Structure formats: C-alpha cells, structure tokens
C-alpha cells in the first residue's frame, strides 16, 4: 500500500518539465509489476490524479486497472475514466508510452462491443487516433478498431473522417489489411463504390507471402463491387503478389461463376447462378451485395441503350433489358435519371423515353475549380512520389541489395541491367 502512495507522490511531484516526466517514466516502469499486483485496489487513487497534468501516471494506473480481468458489472466502471482520460490527456506525456495508450483504448473498444453499444466508443476513439497520430498519413493500430465500431454502429459517415485521409505510414501490415477491408465495407455501405474498390484493391495487391482470410473476403467483395461498377472483374495486376495470383481464385469460385454469368448479360442465367450459390453468399454475408449486382445488370443494359438510341418506347426497353413490364422499365429509368446515371426524359403520353447527351459542357466555374483542384492534388502527389523515389535511391538497404544483384552481371551488361530497374 505504501508503495502505491509513494508512486502517487512521485507522479504528483514529477509531472512538470519534460526531464521530470522522463524520470517519472523510468520510475513507473520499475514499479509496473507492483502496480499490476495491486490492480484491484488502485481505483480510488485515480481520483487523486489529474488526467491532463499527470497523464503518464494516470495512464499507468488505468492500464494496470484494466489489465485485471473484471467481472461484467465491474467492467463498465472504468469507461468514464477512460473516456475522460482520452479527451484530456496531454499528447507529449502519452507519446512516451503509446503501447499503454493503445491497450487502454482497445479495452474500451472491447467493453463497448461487449455491451453492444458500439456507438459510445466512436467519439473517444476518434480523439484517441488523432492524439496518437504523429501525422495524418500514419496508420495506427486503432484505425481498424475505430472502423469496426463505425460499422457495427452503422455510423458510416463517422468512418469517413478517417478514411478520407491518405494513409502512407504503416506500422503493422495486419493493421492495413483490416483498415482497408473495413474501409471498403464502409464505402460500400455509403454506396461509394469507386472508393470501396480502391480500398479492396489495396488489400488484394498488398505484398504478401501467404494468403489470409482478410484477403479472401476482400476479394469476394472486390468481385461484386467491380461488377456493380464496371460490369467486369479486371484481371490481377502484374504487381499483385504471386501467391494471390495463383491461389486466390480457388477460394472464391461461386463469385467467379457469378462474374462469368454476368458477362453473358442475361438476367435469367444470373438469377439461376445466384440461386445455386445462395447459401454460400448468405453465409459470407454478401447476399445484399449480390442482390445489388443483380439489379445493376438492368442499369447497365439501360445505359447501353442510351448509347444506341435517341428515343425508345418503354416497351422496347423492357424487352431489351429483360424486364417484365413497361411499368418496371419506367421505374428503373426514372431512378437512373434521379441518380443522374443517365440523361433522359420520359413521355408518359405515348410511353416514349428520349435519351439525351450529358449536359455537362465543362464551361462552368465550378468545373474549372474542380479541374484546378485535381491538378493541384496531382502535383502534390507527384512531388511526394519523386521525394520517395529520391529517398529510396539513397536508402542503404536498397543500394546493398541492388549492388549484390549487379555483381552477377558482366560489366558490359551493366547498361541493360539499369534499364531493367528503371
């Protein structure tokens, strides 16, 4: 008991200048085991500390408390403390023990999931991510936890604040897989299929030496989203890892069958294919997406008609797209006009649809601004690309690797070798 008091005294005394804090850090590390052994009795001490000034100590105490396996009614007890701490902790002190911070946040996530109130975890975790990140390009372990809470709470929009940052710095490959997979799902939920495809694409093409379940599930969704968006599934790009190119299709056969059926463009065949694999799709929790694939076939067929016709009767549209009645065709056309996927007008008097060209003339100020901002962002991106290139060409590890390979060739072949790497 005395030792805890002493530790609290230390914390209260040594939370001022950075030197003091680092001294405190080493002291705390020494007494970590002692704290853990008395975890059950630590709770009252938390009230003696202030999370904003005594961040480091508070963090150690909190972590020790939470590491103790708690009974379920006790478990929620610390949540207000954790939330309060996340909101008010000092970033400098917290960064001295990030792994403790992560573990505290993770236990919060586990708690809210256990109580099935994921929505409560969203705001604290977002703050936690922002505090933990050194730059907005860094991917932390908390990213995927945050996204799964968003998914479970169906607060897809909340996930976007994180997803819209571009991620370049990665600590753990696993974090990336989960982050991109959940990110893809959130984008699918918001029907931002293009973005979703990007996320899932990142999962599939990430360098890897063996398949994992995340990749397989991601590829399933990738196939479906590709069909909805582009009518076809692109082949694996060259840079996808050989493992993926060789093995991935074997695990996703029903989905590949579906894609083949889709390519034929006949509605009845696609429906039959879905029926035969219904259980599989259901057990993969992809049935909703599969149904969207089915209805996208109508859309694509109607869109193709706009390429060939200026006017067409609803009846002909129904025939051409294998819809049952002109009424249904009208519904589909109407919906597509509303979503501005096609440009058309319906004349209900004689049941005619006239298709128009895209009215966008690329003359408005807004369009010019849009183009300008795209150019700006591309310039930023290409600057980043060249700086990365410079960085890599100065990287000693890279140079030694290249040097080793160069020695295998004669000096005469030197030129061709460099060309190969360019």
């Amino acid at each position, binding site marked *: 008991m005395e030792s805890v008091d002493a530790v609290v005294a230390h914390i209260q005394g040594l939370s001022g200048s950075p030197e003091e804090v680092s001294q405190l850090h080493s002291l705390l590390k020494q007494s970590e085991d002692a704290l853990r052994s008395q975890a059950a009795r630590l709770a009252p001490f938390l009230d003696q500390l202030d999370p904003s000034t005594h961040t480091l100590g508070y963090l150690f105490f909190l972590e020790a408390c939470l590491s103790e396996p708690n009974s379920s009614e006790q478990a929620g007890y610390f949540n207000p403390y954790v939330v309060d701490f996340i909101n008010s902790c000092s970033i400098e002190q917290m960064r001295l023990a990030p792994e403790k911070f992560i573990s505290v946040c993770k236990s919060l996530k586990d708690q809210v999931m256990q109580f099935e109130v994921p929505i409560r975890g969203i705001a604290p975790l977002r703050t936690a991510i922002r505090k933990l990140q050194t730059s907005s390009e860094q991917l932390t372990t908390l990213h995927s936890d945050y996204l799964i809470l968003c998914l479970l709470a169906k607060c897809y929009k909340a996930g976007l604040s994180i997803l819209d940052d571009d991620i370049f710095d990665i600590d753990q490959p696993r974090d990336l897989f989960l982050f991109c997979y959940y990110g893809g799902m959130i984008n699918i939920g918001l029907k931002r299929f293009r973005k979703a495809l990007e996320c899932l694409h990142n999962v599939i093409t*990430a360098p890897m030496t063996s398949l994992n379940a995340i990749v397989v599930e991601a590829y399933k969704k990738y196939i479906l989203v590709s069909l909805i968006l582009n009518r076809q599934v692109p082949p694996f790009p060259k840079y996808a890892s050989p493992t993926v190119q060789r093995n991935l299709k074997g695990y996703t056969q029903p989905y590949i069958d579906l894609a083949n059926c889709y390519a034929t463009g006949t509605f009845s065949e696609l429906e039959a294919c879905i029926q035969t694999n219904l259980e599989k799709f259901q057990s993969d929790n992809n049935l909703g997406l599969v149904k969207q694939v089915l209805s996208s076939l109508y859309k694509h067929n109607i869109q193709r008609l706009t*390429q060939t*016709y200026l*006017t067409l009767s609803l009846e002909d549209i129904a025939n051409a797209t294998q819809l049952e009645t002109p009424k249904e065709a009208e519904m589909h056309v109407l919906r597509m006009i509303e979503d501005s996927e096609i440009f058309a007008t319906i004349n209900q008097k004689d049941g*005619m649809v006239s298709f128009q*060209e*895209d009215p966008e003339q690329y003359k408005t100020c807004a369009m010019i601004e849009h183009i300008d901002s795209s150019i700006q962002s591309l310039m930023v*991106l290409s600057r980043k690309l060249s700086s990365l290139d410079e960085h890599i060409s100065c990287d000693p*590890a890279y140079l030694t690797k290249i040097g080793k390979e160069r020695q295998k060739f004669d000096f005469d072949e030197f030129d061709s070798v460099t060309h190969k790497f360019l």
Partner: protein
Amino acid sequence: MNGDDEGVVGAPIGDDAMFSDGGSVDDPRRPPARAGKAPAAGGEQMDVEAYAALYTGRTKVARLLFIAERCGNEGMQLEALRMVHDEIKRGEDSHLYAEVVAKIGGRLGSQYDFDQTWVDTVDRRAELRKEKLENELSAYKTNMIKESIRMGYNDLADFYYSHGQLGDAFKNYVRTRDYCTTSKHIIQMCLNIILVSIELGQFMHVSNYVSKAELTPEQLDSVTHAKLRCAAGLAYLETKKYKLAARKFLETGPELGNNYTDVIAPQDVATYGGLCALASFDRTELKNKVIDNINFRNFLELVPEVRELINDFYASRYASCLAYLENLKPNLLLDIHLHEHVETLYLEIRHKAIIQYTHPFISVDLHTMASAFKTSVAGLEKELEALITEDQIQARIDSHNKILYARHADQRNATFQRVLQTGMEFERDVRAMLLRANLIKHESMLKTTKKH
C-alpha cells in the same frame, strides 16, 4: 452448252426417272422453274453436270460427294452420285467405289449395282503393282542413287494416292523430300504434298509447303506461281483469315487457266476472292485491288454474278447486290471449301454494306433503308443496334420516328472527360503504389532488424 449436256446424259436420265420412287422427282433436269416458285431453295439450281466438268481428279469426286450429301434433293443427289460412280470406275479406288455404291443403294438401276469382278481385278492389279513398286524401291535404296529413290517414293505415293490411301501417299511424298536435288524437284514435291493435304483437310501443311515452294531459289514459272497463290488462299480461307485469303486469290495470275482443276477452278478463284474481298476490304482497297485489277477481271468474267455484285456493292446498289448474294447462296453452300464460311462472309458483307450506307448521311429514314436492304424496320434496328454497340457506326436511333441520326462526338467534351478520368486513375494508382512501396519497405526493414 446446256443443250449439249442434255444430249450427252439423255439416256441415264430415263433410268433415273423410272427408278425414283413416286413422282416427286419426276424431272430432275427441270428444276429452275420449280426453284423459282420456292425461293427457299434459292435462285437457279446448281447445274451439277456443268459444275463437275470444271474439275478433274479426286477433287471432282470429293466435290460431287459433298453435293450429294448436302443438297437435300434426291434428283440432284442421284445425279451427283451417278457421276461420282462413273468417275471412280475410271480410276482405281475400290474402297470409295464400295462406299458410293452403298450410297446409291440400287436407286440408279442395275448398271450401278456393286460390281464385284471390277473390284477384284482392280484389287489384284493394285496388289501386284504395289509389290512391284516396293521391290523397285528397295532395289534403288541398295544402289543408293538419290534420284532413283526419289522416283521410287514418288511412284509409290502416286500409287497410294490413286487408291485413295491419302495418309500413306502423304507420308511417301514427304519422304521424297530428302532426295530432292534440284529446285524443280522441290517444287514438285511441294505441289504433291499440297494436293494431298488439301484433300486431307490439313491446311497447316498447305501453308507450310506453299512457303517452302516459294523459298526455292529458282524463279517459279507463272503457272506454278498461280497454283501456289491459290493453295495459300485456300489455307487462309480455311483458317478464317479472309483478308489474307482475298489478297492471295487476287494475286493469282490468269495463267492458272485450267491447269489446277484437280484442286480449284478459275471460277472458284473469282468467287472465293470476290467474297473474301467484299467482306474484308475497305472501299479504296476494293476499288484498287479488285475492280481495277486487270488480272482478276479475267477471273470475274467467268462468274458474272460475282462481278455484278461487286460492282453493285461499290456503286452502293445494295438491294441488287444482296439479291445476287442470296441467289448465289444455295450453290455456295454446296461448295466443299466455302460452305462453312458463307454465313460469316455474308454477315460481314452485310455489315459493310450497312456501314457504308449510313456513312454519308446525317439522318437516315429507317423505312427507306430497310427497303434498300430488303428487311423489316425492326430487324434493321436490331442490326444497327449491334453495329453501334460495337462502335462500327457512330449514330443513334430515334426509335419513335424511325430515323437514324449520325452522332458527332464532341471532341472538347470528350477530351475533358478523358482528362478527368485519366487524372483520377493516375491519382488512384499512385496512391496505391506509394502504399505498396511503404509496405515493402516496412517488410524489408523487419527482416533487417531481425538479422541484427
């Protein structure tokens, strides 16, 4: 010409009519009138006799058998079989003889029943001859005189060929290759192999040996040159490379004449070449290489229908062009080489015609167009839709007023669209690439830290 034929073949026709069951095919020599009433059978029915007169050797037999099999008209079938029978009797192929007699099945009278004595004599003679040739060959082999060995193989191959053992004939012709001493021999060998391969339907060999023959250092005489062009054309036709086939047929010199009737008649060169050219050439090419081609004009004179339809096509008289094509169709379907390709070629020609028709207009009335192409508006709409989808016609259909409007893509808008699209793709790719680069870097760092 027609009168001549009737005089010559007058007698067997009588038999024919007597033995055909019922009156259904009472007068096989008068089909044109009937065919005129039933347009499904096509325009003028093929004159088998005249057709057969164009060919010699085994191709005549093969072509007639093909007609007998495909024509679906008993009178024509029996006439073809009768001529096959007569032709075979002149040769020595007893297997084929038995087959043909079985096909006739007594429908042509006792004259065409199975003739066992003939078969026996032929077989016995063949046995003796084969033995003699083989003995000769082994004698030549022991003497090691190249030229004699070549002759020996060649004779043996000729023997097999005339007896219908094409596989063996092919093998022996190929064997002569090692003993060829002059380029003349090489060319002879190549022509022999081409002949057998065409009959075997192995067009890979045909094109191989055509190029071998063309590679001989000696200048080829014009007849051989024309033969090789035809063979190459056939090989391309068979592999569905219509444009190349058309070129080869168009390059065929008029010296071909009746020198290659054991493979192809000059009429065929005109038909094959003309149709392939229509299906695959563009307008200028058609003008330069077909219509203004003096050599090929000689061939076209032999088949006036093809000449007319090419001219009609070029002069945009599509209705009459398509009518000529329709008339030709039943006969072409009976052609041993062209039958498989007729549908594809016709479709191509039709598409070409539609594309050419729409090209100069801003708007086209579908009713007028449908009547020009002898089809219904709905059918035309479907065809146009397919062509527009394949991006062969830049136009859109006003299905309400039945008018086709040409569509001129707005370059400016298209450029903007493409630029934005490209920018987006670039951005996406670069981001993904940077991410992967970082991942790879991270993994390599993991490894290095483990090592130290």
